[in-house]
Structures are given as structure tokens and as C-alpha cells.
């Protein structure tokens, strides 16, 4: 309703009525997160209340029906699987992005993008089923039992590869042309321009994308549940079966009651805190590199 007061610079024009509802809607989104946290905490309370927080770290093994609630092995397994997957997917994704941005002939770029987008759109349970029926038997012939941390890392890497590649590609695309032209004018060869100018200039957004992919890998459930073996133990070897926090919830939730159920909510709480910490880290990295 600008016609009543033409100056859009004024802080007091009639659009002001829009601000409170918008603020309310924004607050709802934030509030939901707080509610989720509060809910997780209240549901996990019966376990926390008994022997305190420390039991999740001090108890040996996860046997909730026998009163043992050690979450630490699953925490390590979640981290190992996610970071293993990122270790595989990040270089591959970044290489793909650099290739499509600077080296690939145009007729390859478009199909490549479409393939990546399709890969990103496949439901995780499909990856899991393929892993269970194809990948696990294949690896079992080489390193039984086949369902292992390694298999989980492979499946997860495949799933987050498109995320890394697509975010890196858009990060590289948004590097100002003037930087690249300047580098070219200084006589840098193409490799020098790419690795010395473009990638460092885009590193904030690239890292942000990688952290986003890490969060997805941490939160992935079905695919990992089907291929990781789900034995609760510290990930001591690549070919040992492990259980991640998300799979723990999915495996046992529909059958759990009482303290057992509360223990599963505690796994959910721990996972949420882990992802929040990651998101905070991502925000910090992106901000710092932005102003550098």
C-alpha cells in the first residue's frame, strides 16, 4: 500500500503491519526446534534421571532391557561413517564440480548435471536395498560378513556425492569473473587460475556444502541400517559391523517401551545436538571466509 506514503525509505510507511505476522511466522520455525529439543529431553528424562547423563558414556554396551545404555560406540560409529563418507565424496564431488565448470565441453555439462540431480533424488531406501542385495554379498566374499562400516561409508558417499558436487559447482560459478580475468591477465595458466584463485575464492561456500553433506550423512537412517550390520561396538576396523545412532532408533523404536524407549529418545537427543554443533560450525566457517 505504498500509494498512501510514497517514500519507501520511511521506517513508518503502511507496510509496517506486515512485520509482526512475519516475525511471528519466523518465531514459529525457531520455536519448533526448541519444542523438538524440549520434547526429546522430556522423553529421555526417565533414563537421564536414574543414573545421570554420564551413564550414556560410562555404561558398557547397549542392552536397554538389561539396564545398560552405552551410547558412545554408536556416537563414534555415526561420526566414523559420516566422516568416512565425506572423505570419499568431497574430493570426488569437488573434482566433478571443477571439471564441469572449467574443463568439460558444454555438451557434457548438461547431462552431467542432470545425472547428479537424479542421483540426489533417489530415495535413501533404494540405495539401502541395492546395498543389501548387491554390495553386501560382494564385500562378504572378500571380507565377511560384508555388512560393515566400510559398506556404510560407500553407500553414504554415493548419497552425498551429488550434494557436494552441486553446491561446489554453484560456489565456483559465483566466483566473480573479474578475479578469473585478472588472474588470466597476470599470465597464470588454467590450472593456476582454478586451484590458486577460483577454489580459494569459493572455499567458504564449498566448505558449507560439505558440512551440509556431513549433516545429511549423520542423519541418514534406512540405507545405513540395511548395510552397516548394526552391531553395537566401537568402530575398530573398516570391515567391522557398526550401529549408528539413527539406525538404533529405527531398529528398536516400534518395539520399545518404558526406559528402553527413553534410551532411544536419548540417542535422538544426542544426534540432534551433534547436528546442531555441525550447523553452528558451518555457519561460523561460512561467515569467517565471507569477510576474509
Amino acid at each position, binding site marked *: 500500500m505504498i500509494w498512501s506514503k510514497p517514500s519507501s525509505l520511511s521506517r513508518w510507511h503502511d507496510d509496517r503491519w506486515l512485520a509482526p505476522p512475519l516475525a511471528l511466522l519466523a518465531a514459529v520455525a525457531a520455536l519448533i526446534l526448541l519444542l523438538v529439543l524440549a520434547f526429546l529431553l522430556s522423553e529421555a528424562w526417565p533414563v537421564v534421571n536414574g543414573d545421570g547423563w554420564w551413564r550414556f558414556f560410562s555404561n558398557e554396551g547397549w542392552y536397554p*532391557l538389561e539396564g545398560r545404555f552405552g551410547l558412545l560406540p554408536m556416537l563414534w560409529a555415526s561420526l566414523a561413517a559420516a566422516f568416512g563418507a565425506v572423505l570419499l565424496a568431497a574430493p570426488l564431488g569437488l573434482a566433478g564440480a571443477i571439471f564441469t565448470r572449467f574443463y568439460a565441453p558444454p555438451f557434457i555439462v548438461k547431462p552431467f548435471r542432470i545425472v547428479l540431480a537424479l542421483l540426489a533424488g533417489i530415495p535413501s531406501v533404494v540405495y539401502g536395498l541395492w546395498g543389501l542385495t548387491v554390495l553386501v554379498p560382494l564385500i562378504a566374499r572378500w571380507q565377511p560378513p560384508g555388512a560393515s562400516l566400510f559398506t556404510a561409508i560407500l553407500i553414504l558417499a554415493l548419497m552425498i556425492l551429488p550434494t557436494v558436487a552441486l553446491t561446489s559447482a554453484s560456489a565456483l560459478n559465483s566466483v566473480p569473473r573479474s578475479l578469473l580475468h585478472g588472474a588470466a591477465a597476470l599470465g597464470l595458466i588454467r590450472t593456476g587460475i582454478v586451484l590458486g584463485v577460483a577454489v580459494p575464492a569459493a572455499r567458504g561456500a564449498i566448505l558449507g556444502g560439505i558440512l551440509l553433506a556431513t549433516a545429511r550423512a549423520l542423519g541418514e537412517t534406512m540405507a545405513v541400517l540395511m548395510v552397516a*550390520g548394526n552391531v553395537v561396538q566401537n568402530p575398530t576396523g573398516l570391515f567391522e559391523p557398526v550401529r549408528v545412532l539413527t539406525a538404533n532408533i529405527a*531398529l528398536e523404536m516400534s518395539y520399545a517401551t*518404558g526406559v528402553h524407549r527413553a534410551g532411544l529418545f536419548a540417542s535422538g537427543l544426542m544426534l540432534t545436538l551433534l547436528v546442531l554443533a555441525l550447523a553452528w560450525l558451518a555457519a561460523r566457517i561460512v561467515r569467517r571466509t565471507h569477510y576474509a
Partner: protein
Amino acid sequence: MKPSQWVRALITVIGLVGIAVAAQAADDKLVLTGSSTIAPLALEIGKRFEKLNPGVRVDVQSGGSSRGVADARSGLADIGMASRALKPEENDLMAHTIAMDGVGVILNSGNPVQALSDEQIKAIYTGRIRNWKEVGGNDARITVVNKAEGHSTLELFLHHFALKNSEIKADVVIGDNEQGIKTVAGNPVAIGYVSIGTAEFDAAQGTPIKLLPMAGVAATVANVRDGRFPLSRPLNLVTKDTPSGLAKRFIDFARSDKVNDLVEAQFFVPLAR
């Protein structure tokens, strides 16, 4: 809207909610909760029951045998579902068996081992036997497939072999029967345990698994029905008191031979009548 319109709208909403609540409380609705093993069967029986008794609604929610027992006791559900016999501390409740289910030990069909004794199975699951050649098979490490905590199949298995879950040294932990069958089908050195009905069906469909006999009794649906197979369990509907009214009619229906085809379609074993 004017204030008067607001008030009218509010009254309408309250009225609708009131009707909905009244419908919920009506006597023609039956709530069943519990064992995810029984839930699909109960759902089918419920559908047929609804068709025969117009106006009746049967609401089935799965959530594990423990939940079925707890909900039946607390009155949250009219009927609980438990895929096991009641425990001694649950004898304040009444169990009504509607079908039998057997848990069978499965191997990959490429495994030359033809039978295992209870003692051998126990030794394999506790990690005392780690190689197939110790029980007459090939020289290969055994992959032990166990179920995740809370599943009634696991409970039955542990109970039969007098084990605690923490004593089992598993290589793979699975959720449902199909995941277990796929794991053993894809791994020639794996051993697992699943519902016999599901395993027999999958084996007949050509899935490369085989069911081992236990204590000399073949793991077949027929032997589970007779109660001869050692590792079998009843599928129970649980009520707090002697059932009456709608609940009684439903339980009588579920125990009658009018649902035999539904029981068999879920790979369970109808009662011997």
C-alpha cells in the same frame, strides 16, 4: 469477520469436535495395539469383521508385544496383541491364542551343514564356535545374524536357549524377517533365525535359504501347528478381564475357522481344531 461471526464459527468448531469425541467414545469401535507380528493379521481379520458387522470399526496399531500387554492392562486398548505366551508377572491378564508362529534357524542353501543341535546353535551364537568346520561344514568363519532388541522373535530365541542378549556375539543385527532372509540369502556363511512361515514361503519362491530341523523335528508349518516344533510361539490377543460385548465377539471370530485363510496368507499357522 465480525465478532458475532467469530463466536458462531467457534461454536460450530466446538460442536464438531464434540461430535468427533462422542463418536470415538461410542461402543462400536475396537482398538487393538501391540505386536507388529500380529498387527497385519489383526488388520485383515478386522476388515472381515467390519464387513460382517456394519457400523463397527476396528483400529489396529502396531508397537510391539510389550506395548500390547501394557495397553491392554492400562485400558488404552480394548485388546492387546502379544506374539508370545504371557509372562508370570502378567498373569493378571487373559490371553486368547488365535494362531501359532514358529521361529526357525536358517542357513544359506549353499551351506553343506544339514542340522545343528541346540548346544551347537548356542555355542555359535555365544561365539564359542566361530568356524563352520567345527560343526561339520566348510572351513569358513561363521556370520552370526541376530535380531535387534525388543523384537519378540529375539525374546523367543533367547528364552528357548536360556541366553541373555548381551551374551550373543553377533556379526549382523537385523530388524525384520525379510532383512534377515536377504542377509542370509546373500551370505553363504551366515546363520540367522526368522519366522518359519516367512522363511518357508521365501524358500518356496526360490530364495537360496534353508530351514534347519530342531531336535530332530523339521521346521515346517505342519509341525508348528501340532506344537511339536520346539521353537514356536502362540500369537495372542490379550484382554484385562474376561472379554464381553464387542471384544468378545471379535476374539471369538478371530479364533474361529472363518479366518483360517487370512492366517495362512500371513504365513502363520491356524489353530488345530
